Each structure stands twice: as C-alpha cells, then as structure tokens.
C-alpha cells in the first residue's frame, strides 16, 4: 500500500468539499467579519459582528447536519466524515454559538472593541472541527495549530489587564512547546509505521510486532495532547491562563478545544490502536483527578477554582480511555458533551458577574448572590451540581458511564481513586453554592439585569445539562455508533 496518495491524479470532487463544509462556512464567516470590521464605526460594530458570527456558527451547525448524510473519506483520505466527526462538529459549533451569545454583554461591559474577537472564535472553531474529522496526523497537527493560535490570541484580549497578556504569553510559549512534542511524536510514528494516516497506522500496529519507536511516538504525542486538555502533569499553565483570560474565552477554551483534542485522542488511542495505552492513561488520569481536586480545595478565585476543576474533569474523562472501546468511546464522547454544556454555562454566569475589569471573581464576591439575582444563582447552582455529579444532571451520567466502563475493564483501583476524588470535588463546588445562598451579601455590586444573549446562552446550556441528565439514552446511542467506525 502506498501511504502517500498521489494528489496530482485526482482533483477534489464536490463530495470532498461537502466533507469540509462546516469548516468552509466558519472560515468564510470569519473572513467576512475581518472585512466588515474596518468598514464599521466602533459603536455599532460589536453587535453586528457578533450577530454575523452567530449566524456563521448556526450555519455551520446546519451544514454539519447536512454533511452527516454524506459519510466517507475525502481529500485523498485525509478527512473522514462519520457520526464520530459529526458529533464533535456539532459540539464545537454549539459551544461556539453559546460563547458568542455570552460575549455580547461581556465585550460591552469590558469595553473591548475589536471585531477580530469574533473572527478568532470562528477560526478557532475551524481548527477544532477539522481535528475531529482529520484522519491524517499532519492534518491533525495543522488543525491543532489553527485552533491553538486562535486561543492564544483570545486569551490576551483583556488588553488593559496585565494578567491577561501574561496568560496569553504563557499559554503561547508553553503551548508551542507542547505542539512541538506532538509533532516529534508524529515523526516517530511515521518512522515506526511508515505512514501518517491513522487508518494505515492502525492496520500496521494491529497486524503484529509493535516497534519500540511507536511507543515513543505515542508518548510524545500524548504529551502534546495532554497539555491541550490540561491533564496533569502537563497542567501547570491552566490556572494562570484561566485566571487571566477573558471569562467567555475561558468558557470556550475549556470546552471546545478540549473536546476536539479528546476526539484526536480517541482516534489515536483506538482507531490507530496506540500501544501502551492503559498504563499511560492510568497514571495521567489518577494524577489529574487528584491534583485537580486537591488544588481546587484551597482556591478563592472562582476562575482559578474552575481551572483546577477542569484539570480534574480531564482526569475523569481519561479514565474512560483506559476502558474497553465498546463502552469507553461512548463514555468519553458523552462526558465531553455534558462537560461542555455545564462548563460553558458556568463560565457564562461567571462572565456576567465579573463586571467591568473582571473585578468580582473571588468567592467572597459571590456572597448572597442567591438573593441578589436568584435566576443566575439558580442556574450556576445547577451547573455546579452537574460538575459535582448529582443525579438529574448531565454530569452524573457522564461520571457514571466513565466509571462503569472502567469497572467493566476491571480497573477497580482507578475507579476507587475516581469516586473518592468526586467526593472531594463536591466540597469546593459546594463552597460556591454555600457562599451564594448562605452568606449575606457583602458588597453592593450592581445587579445588572440579564441581557437577552446571555439569557439564551444560559437557557441552552441548562437545557442541555438537564436533558443529558434525564434522557441520556439518545446521545449515548449516537455516540455508540462511533465504536464501530473507530474500531474497524
């Protein structure tokens, strides 16, 4: 078999373009925003550009659904559209839409006037979408870079705050380093198997003797990807970056790129049949859960707290990677979906409360929120309960599927670490709820009414969180289809 396809022989067909339709849509809308931005005056531009971006993501959503009817390979076997990729495309587009809705108010309050904000969100989404459909390591690398570079810039968008620039630079430097690891891993994998196509690699590694180089390749790629999902011990950037970056951006980068990277990890671990999977995952998952949860216990800044919580959640998610593919893959996919719903929602509330200059982000500032604005506090409570993993919320079934998948693979030790950690985790989420409802308001921070955009964003994430918690069956069924696709 010839691993390098001959591109001169065939030109892309119409079907090829349909297989990247959502990416095309997002890119076009991103460029429209870049073009419109200088033509409009500062005051009216924000709303309009945001609106254009929203239309763009919704169009991408629709085109994802359209694309779902044409599964198959495209662009010389570099792109694969299947229900797996459709799942993550849908997720990325939905998260982006919710983040855009949250950003309307945030940008106005923070007095950030820059149209490229929305463009960068869309470009980031292009990279993330591409990551889930790419079956070629080099293309995955390019997609990873598109997504990462957008988020590096987005992290620094609070230009008046030094901490934001710090976040951006830190994220950029460490992130580039991590990407280099990934690239090095790709090179080694190519050396070991003679191909960069995930399908071919899978065939080679399944067929018998696994070269030692493949282990090194997997380990290095895992370092790069582990950095992106904030898994311990590659997590040190997370709290600083989350603290400095604008709150809606944190909501974005803690969900959409992570989901996309988990998609890549799924392809790598299961479709490419990466060797040494279980022990690698075991260690990293146990570390992430424990470090994330223990460190979160002592945080007083809500954004930092949620940063450590996201490290912990990356750990829970990784547990499922160590399980058998039959229930591990759907568990991962379900977890990413419900984590996206609850975390984007939580950060939507955080960005509303932060106020001008993100002044109100410590735990103390949340005192008495239950009285000051009952609806938002109620919404945040539900998101936090979901993060704890209380029944009737998506977070519960997410943890449930992950742990039961792990138990079916006899990973009793890992499950015990996991359930103990989720009990520890309950404490710090609960702290926020306690402060909101059981303390008297300490400051007279202005209680601004909930604007339309934020209201819709919250309603969508709440509906998703509850839906996944009451009727998880359909989403899980859909996710289960991917098992057959990845494990051909």
């Amino acid at each position: 078999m010839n691993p390098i396809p001959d591109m001169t022989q065939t030109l892309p067909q119409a079907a090829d373009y349909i297989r990247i339709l959502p990416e095309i849509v997002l890119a076009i809308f991103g460029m429209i925003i870049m073009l419109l931005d200088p033509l409009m005056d500062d005051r009216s531009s924000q709303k309009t550009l945001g609106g254009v971006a929203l239309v763009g993501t919704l169009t991408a959503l629709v085109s994802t659904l359209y694309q779902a009817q044409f599964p198959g390979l495209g662009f010389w076997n570099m792109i694969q559209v299947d229900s797996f990729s459709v799942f993550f495309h849908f997720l990325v587009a939905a998260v982006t839409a919710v983040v855009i809705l949250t950003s309307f108010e945030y940008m106005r309050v923070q007095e950030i006037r820059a149209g490229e904000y929305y463009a960068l969100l869309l470009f980031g989404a292009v990279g993330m979408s591409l990551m889930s459909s790419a079956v070629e390591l080099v293309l995955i690398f390019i997609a990873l870079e598109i997504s990462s570079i957008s988020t590096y810039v987005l992290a620094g968008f609070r230009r008046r705050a030094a901490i934001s620039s710090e976040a951006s630079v830190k994220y950029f430097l460490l992130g580039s380093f991590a990407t280099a690891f990934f690239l090095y891993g790709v090179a080694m994998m190519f050396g070991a198997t003679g191909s960069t196509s995930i399908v071919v690699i899978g065939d080679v590694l399944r067929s018998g003797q696994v070269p030692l180089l493949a282990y090194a390749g997997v380990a290095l790629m895992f370092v790069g990807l582990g950095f992106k999902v904030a898994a311990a011990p590659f997590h040190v950037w997370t709290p600083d970056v989350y603290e400095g970056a604008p709150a809606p951006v944190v909501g974005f980068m803690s969900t959409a790129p992570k989901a996309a990277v988990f998609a890549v990890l799924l392809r790598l671990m299961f479709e490419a049949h990466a060797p040494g999977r279980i022990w690698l995952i075991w260690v990293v998952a146990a570390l992430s859960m424990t470090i994330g949860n223990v460190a979160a216990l002592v945080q007083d800044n809500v954004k930092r707290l949620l940063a450590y919580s996201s490290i912990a959640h990356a750990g829970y998610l990784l547990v499922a990677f160590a399980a058998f593919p039959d229930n591990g893959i759907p568990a991962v996919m379900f977890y990413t979906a419900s984590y996206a719903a609850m975390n984007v929602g939580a950060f939507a509330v955080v960005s509303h409360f932060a106020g001008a200059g993100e002044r109100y982000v410590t735990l103390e500032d949340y005192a008495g929120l239950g009285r000051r604005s009952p609806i938002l506090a109620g919404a945040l409570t539900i998101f936090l309960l979901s993060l704890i993993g209380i029944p009737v919320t998506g977070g519960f079934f997410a943890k449930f599927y992950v742990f039961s998948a792990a138990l079916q693979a006899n990973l009793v030790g890992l499950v015990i670490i996991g359930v103990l950690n989720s009990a520890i985790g309950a404490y710090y989420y609960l702290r926020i709820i306690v402060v909101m409802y059981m303390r008297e308001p300490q400051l007279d921070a202005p209680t601004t009414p909930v604007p339309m955009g934020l209201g819709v964003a919250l309603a969508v994430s709440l509906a998703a969180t509850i839906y996944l918690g009451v009727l998880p069956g359909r989403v899980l069924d859909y996710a289960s289809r991917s098992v057959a696709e990845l494990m051909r």
Partner: protein
Amino acid sequence: MNTGLDNSILTLVIFVPLAGALLLLVLPRRDRDIRIFSLVITLLNFVLSLHLPVHFHRAVSGFQYEIDRPWIPKPNIHYHLGVDGISMWLVVLTTFLTPLCVLVSWKSIHERVKEFFILLLILETALIGVFMALDLFVFYFFWESTLIPMALLIGMYGHGRKVYAAVKFFMYTMIASVFMLAAILWLYAKTGSFDFTAIQAAIHSGQVENFAGAAPWLFLGFFLAFAVKVPLFPFHTWLPDAHVEAPTAGSVLLAGVLLKMGTYGMLRFNLGLFPEQSRSNAPWIMVLALIGIVYGALVAMVQPNMKKLIAYSSISHLGFVVLGIFSFTQAGLDGATFVMLAHGVATGGLFMLAGIIYERRHTYEIADYGGLATPMPKYAAFFLFTVLASVGLPLLNGFIGEFLVLSGAFRDRPIYGILGATGVIWSACYLLWMYQRVFFGKVQHEVNQTLPDLSGREQATLWPIAAAALVMGVAPLIWLNAIDPAVQTVLTPFTDLVSRVVGR
C-alpha cells in the same frame, strides 16, 4: 379493587410533591398562599399514599404495586418501583410527617418562604423515591437527590453554625455514598443489570464471577453509606450538628425519615444481597449498635441543649434498629422496622415540640426553661405524651418495637439483649429528667410566665402525632401483619441460621 390506580399509585405518590414544587416555582410570592398550597399538596399526597396500606395484600410476600419500565437502554436502567410491607410503611411515614412539617413551619419560616416549601416538596419526592426504588440505579439517584434539598434547608433556614452543619452533613453522606456507587457499578459490570431482584437472583445462583472475592468489599461499600446515614457509632458526629442548626421541619424529616434511609438500606440491600457477609460481619456491627445505644443515651443525658439531647437520643434509638436487623430473627427484624416507624413519629414529634418552644423563646437551652407546665399546660401534656411514647411506655408505640428487638437480640445472644435493654432504662432517665427540668417546679425565668400556650395550628400539628403514637401502641398488628411477610422474605436466606440458633 381499583386496579387502574394500583399500577400508577407509586408514580403518583412520588411525583405529586415534585409537581407541586414545580407549580410553586411559578406561583406569585404570596407567603400565605404558598403555605396553604404546600399543605394541600402534602395532604393530598398523604391521602394518596394511604391507598397503599388499604389495598395491600397482606398475605402475599414480595413486592406489590410494581411498575417496571425501561428508562435508559444503555446502561440497562429500569424505572422499577415497588413496595413490600417494610417500605410501604416508611413511605406512609414520610407522607404523614411532611404535612406536619408544613404546619410547623407556618410561622417560623418567614423569609424566602417560597424556596423553603419548594425544597421541602423536592425532599419529599426524593425520600419516597428511596423507599420505592427497586432498581439500584434509581435507588442511588433518589438517595443522592435527598442531599441537596436537605443541605440547603439546613444551610439557608437553620440557625447558629448552619453553614458548617450543612456542609458537614453533605460531605459525610456524599463521601460515604460514593463507596456504595462503586459497589453498585461493580454489580452492574458483572451482572449487566441494576434490577434488585435480578441481581439478587444472580448472586443467589452463583452466576456472578469473582463474587466470593469481592463480596466483603461490596458489603462494606453499601454498609458504609448506610452506617453514616443511620448514623451508627462512630460515624455519628454529623448528626448533632445538623440537628441543632436545622430548622424544625428539617430536623423532623432528618430524624423521622432520613435516618431510616440508612437502616432501610441495610435491611434491603446488605441483608438482601449479601446474606453471608451480613452474617459474618454481624458481631462487630451489633457491638457498634450497642455502643451507639449506650453512648447515645449517656451523651444525651448530659446535654444542656434540648435539641441536641433529642438528636443523641436518635443515635440511641437507631442503635436498636441496627441491633434488631443484625439479629436475623423474625422478632428482631419486625421490631427494627417497627422502631423505625415509631421513632419517626415520636422523635419527629419531639422535634416539633422543641421547635414550637423555640419560636417563643429562641433558645433550646434547658436551663432557660423550668416550670413551663404552669403557663403552658397543653404544651406540657403533649410533650409528656410524646416523651412517654419515645421512652417506650407500654400501650404507646415505642414499647412494641423495642420489645420485639430485644427479644430478637436475646434469642441471638443473651448478652446483646441485656446490654440493649439498658438502653430502655437510659432513655427513660434522660428524657424524663429533661422533662422534669423543663416543665416542673417553679417558673425560673420571668419571661416564661407569660408564654402563650399552643395555638390551634400547633395543636393541629401535634394531634396526629399523639393519635399515631397511641394507635401504633394499641393496635400494632395493623402494621406488623404487613411487615411480617416482608421480613420473612428477607430472612429466607438466613433460615438455616435461625433454626440453628433456635435449636440451640
């Protein structure tokens, strides 16, 4: 026979309070309307729940009114509900106490009234669900769901160190119950089912691989979650805090129903799924129960705080329940179930009475009272009645259960019965001593001279308690003849043990 209702009655009883809570959510914030609405809903639910004992086939063992619908195909979760003679009465106890909780909170809750009653109704739904669930997953679901409303009730409407108490309550129960979750997940991984009866059958027929090795750990996983809830010594330290700081309605439901979730869980799941481990672990569990009985009583005796005293008395009484359960005798288990019900009524009543006096004087300190019988004769009468019920005076409900438990314990091993019996004496000591200090003698403090006696609403709260305590004491068979067959079913795997003990 009303068969149409038989199929849906359990669902109705579970979800009527939740529906009420959702309706409350959209109701305008008129406190009076909200209270009346909550009372109507809870009363309606009580009446509905009476359908269960009225149409219950007493001669039949096993679960009745069963409903079994697939809920989530993967994992295989069924909406599977059913009650036997044990859980049926616990459901009725819950629906009986909740309207009284609404009444007792009528005046004492005057801020954030709407939220209070919403939480109360959600809590009722979750509690009923725990007792009805026959699918382990659904059981865990409701079990965890009780946590949030209860913690919020304590944290938002309590007094003193309420936040500390709420968080402590939450963390203790949460941490303990994740072990149960792990055990449930293990069982699911091996049997492919969450169904209680299916898992029971699979274990019984020995189809579960690696069961022999894992069973001791599974037993402990379940047991730990339940022991913290009961609370069994030494897992009891959350209870006094939670009780003292909780609002009255919270205390009533906490002592009346929440603690029974633990003993019910032991009875249903520890004994039902792991008979052999229950048998081998029984000695140390019974020792812990006995320690709880004596220790709870001794600590109760020296409490200066009325509510804390009642809280510690709960530890002592629940020790009886555990003692009865792990005696594996018909009498012991019958008695344990009966103590659960009787304790719910009597201690629930005591907490209501404590709440009523707190509303007038805003203190639970026994030293702040004295001679209350003079200004408040009706209150004193109700208090005495409830104290006597709790102490276990014959013809009142406390006696029957404790007697049965002790006779069961005697049969298991006389020393258990003898030590347990001291608990009865202790409880008479601390409760009557408290009664004497609060009600008899001269009025010590000037403010107490003019305390108003019970209002009509308060009497309406207490009469049902007094009536239930009396009827349960005089005609216990109404309860026991439904409990008996259910206990027999639970004990089937133990019959060889029972015959061995009896034959000795």
